[in-house]
Each structure stands twice: as C-alpha cells, then as structure tokens.
C-alpha cells in the first residue's frame, strides 16, 4: 500500500476532526461575536456619552484598548475550545479510537497543537483587526480621538492581542491534556484567569507587586500595552513568559498522556 503516514497525515486527520463537529462552529461564532460585538458595544457607549466626560478623562482616553476590550471576554471562549479539542474525546471514549489510529502519542499532541495554532493565529488576528477598525470607525464618526495602524505601537498592540488569544487557546488545550475532564479543565482555566487575580488583590501590596505581573491576564495586558507600567513586564518579556507557561503546560500534559493508560 502507500507510504508510511507522517505528521502531515495525522495533522490532516486532526484538522478533519476539528471541522466536522458542530461545536467547533458554535465556539468560533461565540469567539467572533464576543470580540467584535463587544468592540461595537463599548465604543458606541463611549461615543454617546463623550460630550459629558470631564476633560481629564478625555485626555486619558485610549482608543486602542477600548476597542480591544472584547479580547478579555473572548479568552474564555478560546480556552474552552482548546480544552474541548482533547477533553471531548475523553468524554465520549473516542480517545481510545484515536490512540489506536495514532499510537505515537507525542505525534498526536503535535498534530492537535498545529491545528489549533494554525486556526487560532489566523482567526484571532483577523478578529482583533476587525474589532480595532470597527472601533476606530465608530470613534471617527463621533469625532473622538482615533488610533491608526501606521503607528507601530498601535499595530503591535493589535497583533499581540491576537497572539495572546492564540496562546490562551493552547493553554486551555494543555490543561485539558492534564485534567481530561471538560468541567474540571474549564474550572481550573477560569480560576487561573479570573479567581486568582481576585485573591491576589487581597494580599499585602508588597506581595502583589511581585505576583501580579506573572498572572496570565496581567501578562496579556502587558502584551497589549503601548507603554510599560511599573510592576509589569515589557511586552516582549510578557510574551516570552506567557509562551513559556504554554509550553510548560502542554509538555506536562504530553508526559502524562504518554505514561497513562487510555
């Protein structure tokens, strides 16, 4: 018969699995709607009450961040999609059929990571650029200050918000590899992004200064921010730290997958 299958073949197989379930498209629609829909909503609200704003607020106005606010909601949609790409197989038992077809488990993880990476880099970047442009168009129509992509810090902020969402998709996937159950994975993911920052908030401020900047959501904020604030990483360092988290989580999940009985 034909030649031995390669990583290309297992990746094609995983891509087919990704696009042949309806949940994928419900998830992607939620993701797009949250990011672009919230950009429209927030920018319209700001535009409508602009004339009532005090001058200090007007001076502090950030047309970039306000148009990208949906990113911090969409991060839950992409994390769940990343997680479900593996946990749904455990829920149905399909993981056993998958592993019988692809017994080299590292290959399986690589294939799934490639699929998520390819889909979410393209989609996240497209979505954040649309959200940004729609927001700026709304501001322009109300004669508010606007930002343009020809400004390199603005361009960077938009690109990095797409990168942030892609990394969070992969973190969701990695947690799913480790935890295997959808509900547990989502709980841990939400705890990481939402609950831990709240808990840290109650710690003494000297502690906070050291901890806060390492939290994934703060790393995301640093990646998007045009300027480096005190007690946070510069955008490059923040991107590196979040990438290291992603790699560490997926590596741990892969080691567990290769050792555990399916």
């Amino acid at each position: 018969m034909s030649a031995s299958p390669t990583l290309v073949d297992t990746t094609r197989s995983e891509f087919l699995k990704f696009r042949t379930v309806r949940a994928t498209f419900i998830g992607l629609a939620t993701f797009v709607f949250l990011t672009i829909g919230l950009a429209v909503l927030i920018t319209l609200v700001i535009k409508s009450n602009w004339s009532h704003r005090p001058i200090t607020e007007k001076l502090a106005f950030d047309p970039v961040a306000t148009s990208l606010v949906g990113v911090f909601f969409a991060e839950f949609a992409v994390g769940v999609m990343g997680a479900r790409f593996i946990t749904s197989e455990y829920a149905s038992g399909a993981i056993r059929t998958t592993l019988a077809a692809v017994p080299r488990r590292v290959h399986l993880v690589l294939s799934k990571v490639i699929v998520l990476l390819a889909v979410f880099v393209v989609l996240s970047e497209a979505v954040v650029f649309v959200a940004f442009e729609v927001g700026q168009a709304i501001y322009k129509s109300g004669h508010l200050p606007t930002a343009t992509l020809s400004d390199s810090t603005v361009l960077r902020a938009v690109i990095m918000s797409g990168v942030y969402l892609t990394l969070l998709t992969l973190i969701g996937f990695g947690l799913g590899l480790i935890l295997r159950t959808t509900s547990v994975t989502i709980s841990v993911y939400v705890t990481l992004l939402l609950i831990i920052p709240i808990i840290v908030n109650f710690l003494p401020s000297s502690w906070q200064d050291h901890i806060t900047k390492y939290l994934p959501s703060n790393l995301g904020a640093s990646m998007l921010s045009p300027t480096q604030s005190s007690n946070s990483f510069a955008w490059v360092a923040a991107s590196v730290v979040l990438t290291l988290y992603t790699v560490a989580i997926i590596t741990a999940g892969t080691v567990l997958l290769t050792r555990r009985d399916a």
Partner: protein
Amino acid sequence: MLKIDHLTKRYGETLAVNDLDFEVKPGVVTGFLGPNGSGKSTTMRVIIGLDRPSAGRATINGQTYDQLKAPLREVGALLDAKALDPSRSARNHLRALALANRIPVKRVDEVLEFVGVASVANKKVGGFSLGMSQRLGIAGALLGDPGILLFDEPVNGLDPEGIRWIRDFFRSLAKEGRTVFVSSHLMSEMAVSADQIIVIGRGKFITSGTVDDLTANATGTVYVRCADADRLAQALVAAHGVVEPVNDNGLSVSGLTSDQVGDAALAAGIAVHELTPQRASLEDVFMSLTADSLEYGHKDVGAMP
C-alpha cells in the same frame, strides 16, 4: 502473527492479567474465552497500545503496537463500539482514521457499504443503535485491510441475523489467511464460531485447543438405567464411582467409563436397560475450568441463618 509474551498487567492492587503467554495463529478463528472480569479486555487493550503492560509485552509480527508505522493497516480492532464522538458522522469518523494511517479515502465508502451502514454514512453516530455502532466499528477495523483482527465481545447488541452474519464474516476473514481473535464470555458462542479456543480465568491462562480437544480431555458422565437403581448405585460407589440419581431408575455416573459401569452391573447381577456415555459439552468444561476463578461466584442458595 500475534504473540502475547508473558504479559502481566496490574491496576493498582488489582492483578488484571497474570503472566499470559500464547500465540494467535493466522488462518483460523481463535476464541478468547473467560468469565467477565477475567482479563480479556485488558489483554486486548494492551495489544493495541491503550494500556501499558506491567511486565511482558504483546507483539504484532515482532513489533509492539506503538512501533507500527501505520497500525490500522496491520491490526484492526473493535473493542468498544461506542468509543467515538457522537456528534461526528460515520463517514467523517472513518475519514479521520483513514487520513491518519494514509489509507485511500475511497476505502471509507467500500467498508461502509460492506457492513451495511452506507445509507446512514452522513448521519451523526450518536443516534446509532448499538448494532449499527458495532457495524461501524467493524468497518473501522477493516478500513486498513489488516492481517490481524481483534474483536472484543462482538455479538453483544446484535440481533440473531447480525450474529449469523458476523460468524460467517469471521470465517471468511480467517479463510483469507488473516488472524482473527475474538473474545467472549459465552462458551456457546465460541463453540460455534471459533476453531481454536484459549481459556483464561482471573487473568491466568487455563487451557487452549480446538473445541474437540477441550471436550475430549474432559471426563464425561455415563447415564445408566436399570430395574434396581439403588442396588446398582451401591455397586458403583463400591467401584469408586460418583453417583447421582437422575430420574426413577436412572443414574448419572462420573469417574467411571461406560465399560466399567457395565462390568459392575454384570458383577452385581443387575440387568441394564440403557447405558449411554455422555460427552462433556464445552459449557461443562468451561464451568469446571473456571469455577475456581470466577470473580463474583454464585453462592449456593441455602437456608438463611
């Protein structure tokens, strides 16, 4: 050639498979017989690389499953018909398997047609009955045209027509020179569908052979009927037989051949009206072989204390 090489598998404290060592030969249907919980499924799971052995290994043509480059082209397995994503269509399920093993995609429609689920190929498998899922699982096992096929309790969920179909199907696979390894806890099923039988209990090898081998080596009973059963019973007990009354004048004798029973009757001067050696059925053999190894044995129903 499928080889189980001193395979042991523990789950925590539980010893599921205990030093199993046997080969499954091509060209015949090999039955893998044992009570529920005897380690059949565990053995199959180790063969296809789902579970790691604690000791020993299972090899396919000399290689362990995870060393196979395109495993579905060498081993086709149906272990759990419901182990698939319910929201994907039957065709897409098989296409994903085909892609991962570089099996031509046109093969998907061939196997769907062969097992008779082509008409629902584009329906979500979540809506399939167990019988339809079994057929889809068989399609998946055949996808890569493998030389070795494993089926774990394949007749569960099938109607009588499906059971007949699957027996004929196993025979034809074996006739094509393939290795066909089928587990069951039903000895009656194995007696009609398998050429060669491997019996295990509590994870341990008990015996193997053809159906005839297994029943021939077992001591059967002798049925004897005469005018005075009580007196004959005494004579037979004296000759070291074990006697059980069957009906008014009949006795079921074990531990003695029909010749010995006849001789004992003659010596005692009793006229024998009927003397029939009763061959042990595979079922009897299986019950006696595995009686000690049932995980959940049935206690005799006695008087409540």
